[in-house]
Every structure is written in C-alpha cells, then in structure tokens.
C-alpha cells in the first residue's frame, strides 16, 4: 500500500480507480459536451425552419446530389479511421499509415466540397446575412467544417508522428482519441445531412407543410 519507495509517475496517465484511460474519458466527456453544442445549433435551425421572411429558400439553393457525394466521402472516412486505429494496434504500420492518409484526403475532399458549396451559395445570394435560413445554415455547417478542419490538422500531426516513429501500437490511444473525435464529427454530419439537407430541401416556399412547423 505504501508508495514511499516506488517512483510515482504523476503524469497525465495514472488511473487508479476505474482502470480506464484518463484521456479517453476526457474525450468522451468532451464529446458529451459537444453534443450540447451542436444540439443547440441544430435546435436553432429546426426552430427557425420555414421562418425566413425572404429568399433564397432552401429548395432554391440546396443541391442534394453533390452533398450526397460529400456525405458519402465523410462517412467512408470514418471507416478509414477505424481501420487505421485497428492496424496501428496490430502494429501493421504500413496499413495504418495508408488508411490515415486516406482519411486525411477524404477529409480534405469533404472540406473542398464545403468550400465549393459556400462559394456557390454566396454566388446566388445565399449568405449568412441574407435571411434566417442563411444564418442558421451557415453557422451550423461552418462550425461543423471547423471541427473537420481541426480534425484534419490533428490527424496530420499524428501522421507526422507516425512517420517519425513516435506513434506506435503502445500509444495507439492517441490515434484512437482522434478517431473518436472524427467519428463524432461524422455523426453530427449524419444528422445535419438528414435535417439540414434532405428534410429542409423538401420544404415548400409557403411556410409550414406540417402542423409542428407552421408559424403560430
């Protein structure tokens, strides 16, 4: 019981009560917190759905085929991360690096789509300043985009360390955390794609097809 003689490494990785990793716990708690963050934005979007007083309206702007492609890319990048983590744990470094690179590329493709989409929207007059739809749409998607970009930076940083030989199966947890974050960003997009794109693009111009979205 005495720790007197033992060197106690008091760093960011001692766990003496539950046996789970501090960092991973932190990550999950953070994701829980992020749920509320995105929840509020999504709540805003839904509350303001069909409330814009002027155009451009969602069905004039949203381009489902293109977004479907970018959605698909992001979805598959989730697979990539999970495989990268898996191979890293098994010390299959080549495969791990391969998937990590692929994920980064897919993330960049997704961001590319978003940049394209934003400029396109701005072109046809759909800006955050244009109307309520613009404000709610852009804040939500751009903050999601910010999360993705941050994720990309993080993964690049990890990839660099993988090449340097600092990231090995011993500390695969570092990649796993980034993976958790990445998956989370992905599930947020799953919701966004369903609510902001598919449902919203189906809204008609006269507000309120459904009883619970009608103005009061």
């Amino acid at each position: 019981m005495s720790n007197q003689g033992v060197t106690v490494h008091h760093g960011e990785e001692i766990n003496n009560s539950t046996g789970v990793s501090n960092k991973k716990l932190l990550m999950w708690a953070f994701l829980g917190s992020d749920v509320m963050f995105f929840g509020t934005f999504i709540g805003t979007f839904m509350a303001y759905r069909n409330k814009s007083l002027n155009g451009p309206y969602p069905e004039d702007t949203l381009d489902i085929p293109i977004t479907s492609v970018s959605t698909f890319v992001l979805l598959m990048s989730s697979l990539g991360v999970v495989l990268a983590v898996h191979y890293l744990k098994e010390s299959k470094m080549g495969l791990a690096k391969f998937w990590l690179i692929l994920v980064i590329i897919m993330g960049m493709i997704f961001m590319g789509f978003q940049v394209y989409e934003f400029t396109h929207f701005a072109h046809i007059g759909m800006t955050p300043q244009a109307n309520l739809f613009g404000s709610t749409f852009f804040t939500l998607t751009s903050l999601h985009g910010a999360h993705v970009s941050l994720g990309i930076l993080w993964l690049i940083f990890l990839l660099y360390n993988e090449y340097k030989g600092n990231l090995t199966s011993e500390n695969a947890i570092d990649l796993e955390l980034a993976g958790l974050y990445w998956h989370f960003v992905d599930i947020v997009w799953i919701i966004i794609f369903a609510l902001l794109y598919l449902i919203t693009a189906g809204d008609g111009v006269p507000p309120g097809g459904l009883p619970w979205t009608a103005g009061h």
Partner: protein
Amino acid sequence: MSILKDLFHYDGNGWWRIPKTEEAKANPKLEHPFGKFLGMSKDFLIFITSGKGHASPAYYWAIAIILGLITIVEVWWFDVEGLRYLLVPAMLFFSLVKFILVVAFFMHLRFDNKLYSNIFVTCMIIGVFIFSLFLVLSAFHGLGN
C-alpha cells in the same frame, strides 16, 4: 414499509416491477405484452453484434457498407415524390440508425467500458430531451391562450 416493499418487490418475469396478481401467476404469459418477441429480438441483436472483444476489419467494412446503403436509401427516399409525406420521420429514423451504428461500433461503445456509454448516453438523453422540448415550445408558443 411493507407497502413499499410490496410495490418495489420484484417477482415475476416481466420487465417492470409490479407484483403478480393471482391470475398472472397462474399464467405468466399474460404478463408480457410483447410475448416472446422482446426476448427474441434481444437474442437477435446479440447475435448480429456479437463482436465481443475485438472486431476485425471485415466487421468494420460490413458496418460501413450498411451505413452507405442507408445513405443511398435516404437520398432515394428524398427523390421519390410519393414518399415525401413521410420524409421527416423517415429521415429521423435513418439518421438515428446511422448514428447508433457509428457510435456503437466505430466508436466502440458497444465493446468498451460501460463508463463511456454512461457518460455519452446521459448527455445525449438530456440533450435530445431538452431540445425536443424546446422545439415543441417554439412551435406551440402561446398554446391555450
């Protein structure tokens, strides 16, 4: 105290904790509104998700393919004029399924320490609950006035 004890005492094979009536004791099947169905579906769930311990890449691929398929269905649904009236519930349902798949399998909640699930699920419950309430309130502002 004994009333309390009776109320909370668990005997019977139902999933709620109400003491059996005489009638129910005689015929346990009556207790379960869904009969065997719940039990079977639980078994089925365990069966398809039994990746206990470590999952293999093939397994991840399978999940990814399911996710991709659901997405295709989503977009298809959106495109079919005749299904539009069910768009909202359908999208909510599909995204929920995808959400759960990613969280449970890609993010390993299903295999990992319970603690993580507890944390995340608590947050999800509070979040979903309050934002739904919030949406209801904004939709029905002034109700009954």
